């Protein structure tokens, strides 16, 4: 399967809070950042931690402005995230689809 994202793409991280091990840090959930680099292809850590082989998928360095993660701060935080954790930033997350104004 081709990689879903490329450097420069704006992405939004998942808001899911799974009961199993995940490598999407809590502070980076539901945030919008920018893909800066492809970091290889690896089986999803969530699958591996549950004893499943997991399919290999793209892992990206995603850069966030601290203000978008924490509400303040002028630094940047780059987090390495599996493709399954990401949606295009213009995709409305579940529960936030507004009606027409």
């Amino acid at each position, binding site marked *: 399967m081709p990689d879903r994202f490329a450097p420069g793409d704006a992405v939004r991280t998942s808001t899911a809070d799974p009961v199993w091990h995940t*490598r*999407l*840090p809590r*502070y*980076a959930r539901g945030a919008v950042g920018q893909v800066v*680099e492809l*970091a*290889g292809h*690896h089986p999803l*850590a969530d699958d591996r931690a549950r004893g499943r082989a997991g399919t290999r998928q793209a*892992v990206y*360095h995603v*850069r966030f402005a*601290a203000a978008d*993660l*924490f509400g303040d*701060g*002028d*630094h*940047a*935080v*780059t*987090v*390495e*995230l*599996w493709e399954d954790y990401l949606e295009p930033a213009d995709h409305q997350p579940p529960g936030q689809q507004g009606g027409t104004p």
Partner: protein
Amino acid sequence: MSGQHHGSSAISERVRHVEALLEARGLVDAGEIDRRIDEFLAGGSPANGARIAARAWVDDGFRDRLLTDANAAIREVGLTMAGGLQEQRLKVVANTEQEHNVVVCTLCSCYPIALLGPSPAWYKSEAYRSRVVRDPRGVLAEFGLELPADVRISVWDASAESRYVVVPRRPEGTDGMSEEQLAALVTRKGLIGTAAV
């Protein structure tokens, strides 16, 4: 967030139990796990990271290759990230006058052991892991590194498969020094980003 990785006798007991089961079922030989860990740690030292930083200071071409494809570049100085079960991806970032980089693993304590040796206790502490992403300027100040307000800070969270090394800025007044002398200036903290050199 999980607690400390080390010093828990309950975890040590569980690890010993799993090791005993693996040996009893013939999946590993007695002592094999210790031998593998010893082999993996034997080559790991901050002197390796220091060599990489010093070469990047004296050779712009190497620096460019290092920042583009670190795994390939470090082979030029006889180093590799392939010492464990698989070759780990290495990402090297370089400090500049405008930007300072610092590395953390907020989820556990992932760290490039081959290039920096075993990690310091503070790197694994919950305080460092939880605070440096939120307030890096404050945490770096506590380490004694006061950065000018106009220097941007980039924090790198080793949350997946890559391992990270920071190339510090080359100190002033080192123009006449050899690569070997320069390498002796580079500290482990400098390579993590919690100190200048």
